[in-house]
């Protein structure tokens, strides 16, 4: 019974973690411009994140050490430092987007300008990280984030042509109004959003925080498979809602506030309330995860004591690092950067750094010294290798496509 509960709650957390600001913005923009024709990318990203999150969770469960710690030891300090710098950069840009997302959710509910909400949002994140237990924090925001199911309900309420959806998945067409390069830019951005590195660091560090042992390997696998699959389905629904509500009207999504129109059109006030709660929960949950993930990465690389199971005074540098990162990100939000553009940047930079995150995971998951008999099987390795090629292609193409298409303009 305890295991069933653990899987259920873990699944909820995975759903919340997957459908964050990057997914919310990119799926709405994609659906509004490309209809269903990029859904296949989300399917690809969902399989990829399941594969690698399961590996990262297995590494943490068996070695009792999170991914960053093992990476540094296995790959070496120099490569580890390169990985750390890239991770820090991606995490900070992602955190800027998530903080802005929470503040905009408050603005939508209150009409008070979102800049005024930023200090309060940062304070709330700080209090939750400082005071609330890991499991409670993870689950409360995971459950609240489930209100994003409103996108799935709205999609079916809007009466999609499922044959057309299926045809678009298996034989995608670039819309005549869009350039091929822009299509691939969005494909890469969606892929980057789906496989954002912080998700894996958080997932594996969470396994250590919750003191998983070999008996929890089923929980690890169940959480990764079901949680990310449901998260992926929600993201697909968001594309579907945008394709039905925005595309025929020639509406492009340039502001987070527009995203509320999809569920509101399909479901009225209930849809609007659900999407507002979901927007808050998923961006706030993701902000917690990114902040913690940044603290984990730094502390694990430098060998500092870390974790929410320790009192702040016992893990002072871990907590201080998170405070600095939070203040830095909040400062960047207040420079009046466009939250949607920052989100796009975050997902593109995520795409750029994907191999740095996932190659060490693949290497360590094959190391008998850490994994014993539970190294990757042939199927996991074959699929992992195929994904590694995709990740490298994505990484190489991300910046040139961003420049060439002027960020998909």
């Amino acid at each position, binding site marked *: 019974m305890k295991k069933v509960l653990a899987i259920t709650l873990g699944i909820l957390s995975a759903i919340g973690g997957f459908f964050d600001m990057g997914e919310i913005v990119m799926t709405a923009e994609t659906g509004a411009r490309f209809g269903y024709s990029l859904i296949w990318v989300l399917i690809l990203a969902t399989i990829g994140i399941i594969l690698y999150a399961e590996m990262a969770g297995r590494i943490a469960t068996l070695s009792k050490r999170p991914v960053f710690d093992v990476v540094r030891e296995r790959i070496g300090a120099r490569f580890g430092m390169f990985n750390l710098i890239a991770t820090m950069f991606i995490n900070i840009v992602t955190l800027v987007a998530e903080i802005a997302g929470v503040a905009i959710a408050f603005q939508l509910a209150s009409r008070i300008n979102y800049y005024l909400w930023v200090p309060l949002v940062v304070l709330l994140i700080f209090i939750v990280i400082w005071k609330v237990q890991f499991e409670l924090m993870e689950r409360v925001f995971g459950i609240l984030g489930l209100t994003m199911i409103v996108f799935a309900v709205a999609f079916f309420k809007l009466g999609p042509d499922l044959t057309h959806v299926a045809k678009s998945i298996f034989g995608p067409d670039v819309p005549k109004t869009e350039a091929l390069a822009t299509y691939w830019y969005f494909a890469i951005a969606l892929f980057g959003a789906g496989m954002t590195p912080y998700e894996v660091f958080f997932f594996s560090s969470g396994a250590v925080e919750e003191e998983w042992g070999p008996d929890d390997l089923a929980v690890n696998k169940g959480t990764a498979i079901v949680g990310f699959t449901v998260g992926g389905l929600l993201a697909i629904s968001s594309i579907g809602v945008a394709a039905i509500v925005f595309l025929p009207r020639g509406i492009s999504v340039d502001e987070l506030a*527009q995203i509320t129109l999809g569920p509101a059109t399909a479901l*009225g006030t209930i849809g609007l309330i659900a999407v507002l709660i979901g927007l808050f929960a998923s961006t706030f949950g993701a902000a917690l995860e990114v902040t913690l993930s940044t603290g984990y990465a730094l502390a694990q690389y430098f060998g500092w004591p870390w974790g929410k199971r320790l009192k702040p005074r016992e893990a002072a540098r871990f907590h201080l690092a998170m405070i600095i990162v939070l203040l830095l990100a909040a400062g960047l939000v207040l420079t009046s950067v466009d939250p949607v553009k920052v989100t796009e940047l975050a997902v593109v930079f995520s795409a750029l750094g994907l191999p740095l995150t996932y190659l060490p995971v693949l290497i360590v998951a094959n190391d008998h010294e850490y994994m014993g008999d539970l190294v990757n099987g042939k199927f996991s390795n074959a699929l992992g290798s195929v994904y590694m090629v995709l990740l490298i292609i994505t990484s190489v193409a991300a910046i040139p496509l961003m420049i060439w298409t002027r960020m998909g303009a």
Partner: protein
Amino acid sequence: MRSQVKLVALLIAVAFASACTAPTLTESQYKASVVNAIEPAVSTIETVRLTLAQTERHNLFLNPMDIVIGGQEDSIGAVTGTFASVQPPNAALDEVRTQVLDLLGQAEDQIAEARIQLRRGRVGEAIKSIDGIEDISKALDEIAKRYS
């Protein structure tokens, strides 16, 4: 030596002066800028129409809808400003410029009025204030089709 210094100073002054003015575009570049201005403007108008229609249909609470429309008002203002700063390359395109700016200005005024009425809680008045905005959207779309 002094004349060389003067020449360098003149070149720097010219460089600064040229940086302060919008570049003159070729005819095809200008036509592309017309399309680039119209596409987001049509998106803005359609967002406002959708927002107000759904607000009335579902009796939605007004805070988020007000933010949506305020954001769209800012967007169309920015689009108008950017387009207005671009110099048409010949007299024939002056007319297009005037026509597009006229339509954008009308749309911006109507959206601003809708936002004001919505903020006062008068959804019906907000909808009335965008009467005819659909025609503006269509007219802009026609121009975009002509030049794309």
